[in-house]
């Protein structure tokens, strides 16, 4: 195997220009695809932060007794997906409303009686913070006898959920396109190398070299190129991320949101992916070339 590595490295050095083109192309493709992935990861983080704020307001019927209220609380807490159900009396609700209205709170002083209903503020478990679970939970809670109305910003959550799904789909689509494009580019550059060395390959065959003996250094070349290109792409992307996050951290928004880069294990996965792409590109080229 050592000899195959030596041959692969020697071939790379002998074909510096073609190798450089391949590595740069892989680096660019990986950088663009990884930039999208990084954007999706950070956008996902932001959406997660927003999703954590999702609460459900359960308004009780005006004539609900204390026993009925207690019963509703127990029932709410027994429903799967509910983390906590906190009672908010009509007086507390009015107090909150006044605080929120600040300078206009005097308007509320003229009311003869408090029109706000008693309610429960339901905090959900993370697994239930998606639109399907939410509508299911709302339906179940709405069916309780003491419950008058359930409110949870249905339309807003649906839109949110759609955005997340759209991001995810776009991510898969762009990732697949770049994967195919990179395989195609590697395959073509390896094919160029193969054509430039077809006489050499023919001579190797004539002196009794097996296909395996001829192919392995090419596979190693493809893998080295794939790995190197990916590493360079990631380093350039990290440089971009570092300068962007430095600017971002100086802004006010940074207190709410923190930009992050891929973890080391994800970086390793991406590099392995690049190596696989290099191998695959070689496989495509060699499969066609070695038939001849």
């Amino acid at each position, binding site marked *: 195997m050592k*000899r195959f590595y030596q041959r692969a490295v020697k071939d790379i050095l*002998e074909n510096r220009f073609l190798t450089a083109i391949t590595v740069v192309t892989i680096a660019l493709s990986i950088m663009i695809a990884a930039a999208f992935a990084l954007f999706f990861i950070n956008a996902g983080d932001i959406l997660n932060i927003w999703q954590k704020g999702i609460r459900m307001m359960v308004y009780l019927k005006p004539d609900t007794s204390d026993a009925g209220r207690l019963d509703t609380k127990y029932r709410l807490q027994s429903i799967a997906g509910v983390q906590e159900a906190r009672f908010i009396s009509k007086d507390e609700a009015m107090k909150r409303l006044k605080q929120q209205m600040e300078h206009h709170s005097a308007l509320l002083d003229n009311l003869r009686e408090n029109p706000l209903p008693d309610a429960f503020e339901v905090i959900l478990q993370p697994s239930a913070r998606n639109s399907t679970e939410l509508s299911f939970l709302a339906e179940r809670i709405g069916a309780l006898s003491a419950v008058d109305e359930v409110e949870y910003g249905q339309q807003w959550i649906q839109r949110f959920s759609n955005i997340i799904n759209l991001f995810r789909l776009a991510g898969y689509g762009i990732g697949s396109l770049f994967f195919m494009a990179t395989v195609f580019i590697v395959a073509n550059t390896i094919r160029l190398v193969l054509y430039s060395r077809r*006489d*050499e390959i023919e*001579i*190797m*065959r*004539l*002196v*009794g*070299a*097996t*296909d395996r*003996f001829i192919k392995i250094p090419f596979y190693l070349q493809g893998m080295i190129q794939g790995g190197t290109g990916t590493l360079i792409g990631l380093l350039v992307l990290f440089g971009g991320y570092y300068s962007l996050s430095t600017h971002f951290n100086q802004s006010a928004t940074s207190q709410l949101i923190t930009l992050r880069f891929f973890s080391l294990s994800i970086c390793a996965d991406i590099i392995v992916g690049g190596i696989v792409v290099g191998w695959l590109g070689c496989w495509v080229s060699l499969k066609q070339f070695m038939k001849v």
Partner: protein
Amino acid sequence: MEMTDITNDAIIRMFHVHRRYGAKFALHDVTLDIYKNDYLFVTGPSGAGKTTLLKLLYLGQSLSEGQILVDGINIARIKRSGIPLLRRKFGIIFQDYKLIPTKTVYENVALVLEAAGRKPRFIEKKVRSVLRTVSMEDRIKALPLSLSGGEQQRVAVARAVVGDPKIILADEPTGSLDNESAGVIMAFLDDFHSRGATIILATHDKELIKKKGARVMHLRDGRLWSDTLS
């Protein structure tokens, strides 16, 4: 003199071999035996089928009809994966040398042993020894294009013999060389022949054949015209 009395072991046997390109026959119904340690000239005018005959032996081309046994193996039945093993039985010398221009003299010769999976230490020892035999030891680091035609052919001869093949196929090995260089190459081939190798040499150089005095197979229009001793 007609070859009729040879009964010892045949290393190559050809039975009704045909090679067709479309409707044209490059070889037509050739049947012959080549024996261990034979020195065989294959001769005939250009287009007679000399190169085709050699190529069929190492499966550089496939048979259209017939059978060829090389060292007891029916090459028509060899699978693709078995071709390299067949080719290692031969040392092949080409008129245009077929050296890899980006590899040094040493690397060109060592390639045969590397392809056969031999150990690096053995390779180094063997390659140096063979290059010494063909007086090219002092040029091991040179690239082929920096060598003269005669030197390139000597490297090609070294590459052909380094794997200790049973059979050496030489296709017009002196065709593009001056008399002196040609003499050197022929002397090397004689040496390997004396060590037990079977030599099959395609040429249309009548002087060369006359000087050597060996078995001569004459081809004309793809047919075996005569098989004699010169």
